């Protein structure tokens, strides 16, 4: 089993007639940052939901540090507590303040006392630079701020790995930077991350491996260097080219921010 | 007259069948009360809705007050209020002697009493009551039509009245069908207040039958089922009308 934190083995998933995932397999090692990218409809979000069994795969297995998620004896809720998830639309609990959003997991799922949970929550909020907004409600926060609280919520559980589902896709352009910066810091601290994103600057900067998925299969995988200098498959080439066209100059701008510590 | 009767295999067949004639008459009275109150309430409700939405400050306040009071008090109290007016006045002005106002009048068609003080009071109170609820559904529909259309119409040269007539009201009617259907479907339930003033509607007949046969459970359940059937038919009919008159985007 090597020292893989997460092992995804031959995942298949269909919705009715539609086959969304067709035999996806990969490992994620300790402190690794995996970036998954590809055209929309390729099954990327579904893949993440399969990993923490929110949408169990039809075929295949997922192992977290050797524990098989599909095993009926496995307590799936306990496993989920060890896999963090950050959502495209934040999904904060709207009736709870930021601090409570972050503390509720540690308190109710991990069983910490109210004070311990609160302390952890404050640490997490500090980590994402949102400690000043602890007493605010999600409705009072901007998109970027909400997403950072979402990240803190995942961090507070001290998970083995964090899944990011297009974390910046729903954000206004000027807010993307603050979230990406947090994610960069996390990556550099050695957090094990799987990130589904279009943000190639981010990938270029911290990804250990990039996986290109199209129509439910892994078309190509390799380091960022590999993809950005000589991608092999035609589909990957086309896709990357389109992204470059679209983002064009703003890519450059973001690269200067991102390459700072590279 | 009523077409297919639901079958109740475990009920005493002799118990209710003899009374089908009475039940039919009661049913007819209920339906009569319902339609008159619905239509009367519609007309008045439309006026109230227009007054609230497009009337001046005074007019809309009056309309609002009317609606709030009607909706905030029981239908039964409203019925009693109306019904006992002549009795009260009689007792007040002519306590000993011939009554000031006659409450024994009646209007008959083919030997059937279609209007008397009790029926009139019921129709009036039901109609006034329903108007308040219908007005709210209409007003909601009117409000959902963007003010932009009013502006557009007026910039074309329509007067306010014309805009209402040709643009707003037609759209409102269609828009309010879903919510208005609720009132239209469930109003038959409320016709039972008629029994409090001795009108022989469906429920009144039920009480009569029970007093003769003592088959309380069957009779009331059967009659309850009749109300349910009536309501379901009306609701379904309105659904069909809604589907048939669909305009895209509305």
């Amino acid at each position, binding site marked *: 089993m090597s020292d893989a934190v997460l092992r995804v083995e031959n995942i298949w998933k269909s919705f009715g007639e539609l086959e969304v995932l067709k035999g996806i397999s990969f490992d994620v090692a300790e402190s690794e940052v995996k970036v998954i990218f590809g055209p929309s409809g390729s099954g990327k979000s579904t893949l993440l939901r399969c990993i923490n069994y929110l949408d169990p795969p039809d075929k295949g297995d997922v192992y977290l540090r050797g524990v098989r998620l599909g095993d009926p004896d496995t307590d799936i809720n306990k496993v989920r507590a060890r896999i963090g998830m950050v959502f495209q639309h934040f999904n904060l609990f709207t009736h709870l303040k930021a601090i409570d959003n972050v503390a509720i997991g540690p308190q109710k799922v991990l069983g910490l006392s109210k004070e311990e949970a609160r302390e952890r929550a404050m640490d997490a909020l500090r980590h994402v630079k949102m400690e000043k907004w602890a007493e605010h409600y999600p409705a009072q926060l901007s998109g970027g701020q909400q997403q950072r609280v979402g990240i803190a919520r995942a961090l507070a559980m001290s998970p083995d790995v964090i899944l990011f589902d297009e974390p910046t896709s729903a954000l206004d352009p000027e807010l993307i930077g603050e979230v990406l910066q947090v994610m960069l810091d996390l990556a550099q601290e050695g957090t094990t991350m799987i990130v589904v994103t279009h943000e190639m600057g981010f990938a270029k900067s911290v990804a250990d491996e990039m996986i290109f998925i199209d129509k439910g299969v892994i078309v190509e995988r390799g380091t960022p260097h590999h993809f950005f200098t000589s991608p092999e498959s035609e589909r990957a080439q086309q896709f990357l080219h389109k992204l470059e066209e679209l983002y064009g100059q703003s890519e450059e701008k973001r690269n200067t921010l991102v390459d700072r510590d590279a | 007259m009523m077409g297919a009767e639901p079958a109740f295999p475990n009920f005493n067949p002799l118990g209710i069948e003899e009374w089908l004639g009475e039940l039919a008459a009661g049913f007819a009275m209920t339906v009569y009360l319902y339609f008159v109150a619905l239509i009367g309430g519609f007309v008045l409700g439309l006026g109230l809705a227009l007054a609230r939405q497009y009337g001046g400050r005074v007019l809309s306040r009056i309309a609002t007050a009317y609606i709030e009071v009607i909706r905030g008090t029981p239908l039964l109290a409203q019925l009693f209020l109306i019904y006992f007016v002549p009795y009260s006045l009689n007792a007040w002005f002519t306590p000993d002697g011939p009554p000031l106002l006659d409450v024994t009048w009646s209007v008959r068609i083919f030997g059937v009493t279609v209007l008397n003080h009790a029926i009139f009071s019921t129709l009036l109170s039901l109609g006034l009551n329903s108007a308040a609820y219908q007005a709210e559904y209409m007003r909601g529909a009117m*409000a959902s039509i963007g003010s932009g259309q009013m502006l557009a119409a007026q910039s074309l040269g329509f007067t306010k009245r014309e805009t209402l007539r040709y643009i707003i009201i037609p759209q409102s009617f269609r828009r309010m069908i879903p919510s208005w259907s609720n009132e239209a479907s469930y109003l038959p339930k409320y016709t039972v207040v008629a029994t409090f003033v001795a009108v022989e509607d469906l429920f009144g007949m039920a009480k009569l039958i029970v007093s003769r046969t003592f088959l309380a459970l069957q009779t009331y359940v059967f009659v309850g089922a009749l109300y349910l059937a009536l309501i379901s038919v009306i609701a379904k009919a309105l659904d069909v009308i809604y589907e048939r008159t669909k305009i895209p985007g509305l």
Partner: protein
Amino acid sequence: MPTILWILLVRGVPDALQITFFGLAMGFGIGLILALMRVYGTEEMGWVAEAYEKVLRGIPVLVLIYIFTFGASSIFWFVDPIQRPIVGAYVALGIRSGAYQSQIFRGAILSVSEGQVIAARALGMTGFQTQIYIVLPQAFRIALPGWSNEYAVVIKDSSFASDVGVFEILKVVQNVTANHPELWLPSMGIVTLIYFVFTYPVTRYFGKKQKGAVGEFGREVIWA
């Protein structure tokens, strides 16, 4: 005149409030269970709940009261026969309210965004925890306007209970004015005022905040 007012307030109002409270409480329990059945239960459970709602909404309150007081009073074998009519009325109002509150809660539960449920599960919360800490707290807040409307409906429906002997406001008026028919009009006016005082502030405060208040809540809660 003042005596009547006094009697109305002291005897009629508390009884009316009592029956209202009981009806709402019973309706709350039934409604919550039915709503959960409809939203999270199996398909069959959903049909049962829906059928319950349809039937209870389609029968006049008065008929329901009669069914339970005169038709089926033997259900309440454990209650002293003199009390049975009153219990019947209470139960009728309760199960009727359950049908309506089920609609209210179902709509409210469904309005809590699915994303939050997913997030809660992703944290590792069990389904039960998700309901208790995330969905229901928000659902109850969302349900308030519909609920305040239902309160008004039940308190008005309690007037029908007078027909079977429950000593609520209208019954008291009937008793008192039996010998003084000229007092009918004024005392009915007062009764109307009393009901209004109990319904309007609540529905105004908790009601749906729409342009010009008085939202689209009729006798029948329109929801989902």
